[in-house]
């Protein structure tokens, strides 16, 4: 009886050990197969370590800075995260919102200067990155930031409350990422939302009216958005335009490499950030 008991216990322990070993082995090899790096968007806090919850490999940066100012820090962060990956692993960047604009800038510069400045951080990132999954990318900014930047009085109040005017995130004609670089040269899969429910849909309604004439608005024409960004910005359209439906097509900023990938009407602009399955979406 005693012998059976000990045999049973030994078997259990052995199985557990084997299971652990198998698990460890498969995980460690899997881990080296992929390298996903998350880059957050605009945040009211300067450092946003909780932006994606406890999802790993997040690049923390000061999103109240303009694209050119923030880009070196973001690039440094991406390179540091790449250090965690196997040398030959395909690298996928997963930026959200304003982060997508900064990532497009870094890759675009890396693409442009790969021959002339081969050792620059932007070029190193361009060389190692294989894909980008852009979650509601702010390629044209948002009219909401226009309000923040509107005039000195509003700006003073808003800056007092901790929100700064970021012109690269406004709809400014000279500051958006599309005026700085054209092609990132990396396949970019666009994930966008048209859910408008936050704050009772107030900001969504405001954006729905953006670029739409009074007459057409009365007739029911709405510029699609996710309460934060107009759809044309998230879909990386070459020019600002009215998009009546999520399926509306536009020529992309980077027509060869950008493509519409996934549309959701269930998650708003900020809702999916901490859902691991959503953030690691791929085909």
């Amino acid at each position: 009886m005693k012998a059976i008991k000990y045999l049973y216990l030994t078997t259990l322990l052995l199985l557990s050990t084997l299971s652990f070993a198998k698990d460890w082995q498969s995980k460690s090899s899997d881990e080296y197969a992929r390298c996903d790096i998350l880059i957050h968007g605009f945040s009211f806090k300067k450092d946003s370590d909780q932006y994606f919850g406890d999802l790993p490999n997040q690049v923390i940066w000061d999103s109240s800075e303009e694209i050119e100012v923030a880009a070196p820090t973001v690039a440094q962060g991406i390179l540091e995260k790449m250090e965690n990956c196997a040398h030959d692993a395909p690298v996928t960047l997963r930026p959200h919102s304003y982060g997508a604009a900064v990532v497009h800038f870094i890759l675009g510069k890396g693409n442009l200067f790969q021959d002339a400045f081969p050792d620059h951080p932007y070029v190193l990132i361009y060389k190692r990155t294989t894909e980008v999954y852009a979650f509601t990318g702010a390629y044209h900014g948002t009219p909401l930031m226009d309000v923040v930047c509107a005039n000195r009085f509003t700006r003073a109040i808003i800056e007092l409350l901790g929100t700064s005017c970021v012109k690269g995130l406004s709809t400014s004609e000279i500051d958006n990422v599309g005026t700085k670089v054209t092609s990132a040269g990396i396949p970019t899969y666009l994930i966008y939302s048209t859910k408008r429910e936050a704050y009772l849909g107030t900001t969504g309604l405001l954006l729905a009216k953006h670029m739409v004439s009074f007459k057409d608005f009365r007739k029911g024409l709405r510029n699609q958005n996710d309460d934060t960004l107009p759809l044309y910005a998230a879909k990386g359209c070459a020019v600002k335009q009215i998009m009546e439906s999520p399926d509306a097509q536009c020529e992309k900023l980077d027509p060869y490499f950008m493509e519409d990938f996934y549309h959701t009407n269930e998650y708003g602009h900020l809702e999916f950030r901490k859902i691991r399955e959503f953030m690691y979406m791929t085909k």
Partner: protein
Amino acid sequence: MKQSKAKKKISLISSALVMGVSLVFCFIFIKSENSSLSFFSSREINFNQFDQNQVISRESFPKNNQTSDRNTSLKDQLHSNPSRLPAAEPSHTESRSVKKYKKVVNLPPNFIPLGKRDPLTDKYSPRTKTALGEDESLSLNLLPSHYFLNLERNKEETYRVSLRTQYKDRPVDVRLSVHDQLGKPYPIRKVRPGLYKMTLNSSELTPGKKYFEFQARYKNSEVWSRLSLEVNQSLVRHLRPIDQGLNAQGNLFFNHEFLFHQEGTYLIEGILYHENSPIAQVSKVLKNVPQGPSQLNLQFHGYFFSQKKISGHFQLKSLQVRKVDDALKTFGNQWIELNSETSYLSWQQFNSRAYENEIIRNKIERLTQR
């Protein structure tokens, strides 16, 4: 006797404890195979990338039109019943990305095939901006002459904004005010009811970024809008075309002479048109250019035209010139329209030898070796 009974009891209890611990141990590991957020997976060697291979596929997420027909939304599934998460599938995105990469693997890194739009025209050609008041009755249409303006020495430049105001679709005279980001006001001239002009000449324009805020008031309605303008000193002046056509390798080239106003490193981007449509963009970095006249030879690799069998007249439509520093910051934003056209070229005359783009080849290898 009592002692042996006590010993048996202790032995049984300890055995049960060991079994229990082992069962818990097994349970944890069995669970860890199904869940990435398991106890042990968070203690992996490479903590930063736990179980990233367990990715979710786009197909696993239903499209909106599909979700609307379902009783339970995807969000409900994810939040209320994590065990009903869409199953992870092996990744196939690589093939999609690989296909994209394969189309450019035989092109040089500075060559970008274009779609239907010309990115430089989009960037530099102003469009009308419409703003509406809160009560939606008053509208303000702004059409600037430039987004980027370059000041040339001894040459007068003008920045103009045309303003149209309407109340319930009728042109109306309104109270208008314009000021920049520093609060400096600018005068506006009325042309006719509902149409105003703002004009600034070179002496009023200093290099830098300007953000003009426009406010219009009519009855109880108010509307505001803003325009941005970047003013730069001119970087170069086009002197003359020298030559264009196919070089000895069968690559398309355009050779022009420019006067560089400052020494430094420059990034030049050119847009090529074919039959009135944009077809390709190339870039070139000129390092340590001296002040004074210099030649620029911009080349489009012939393989693209040979492979796609594109014949006809080719036009170097325009250039964008920017100055670059060591941090890769660019300055200047100068747009030069050239409209320099070649004679008729047959696709068979172009270079048919593929370019070997090693960086793209390396990306393809990394995506396919998994």
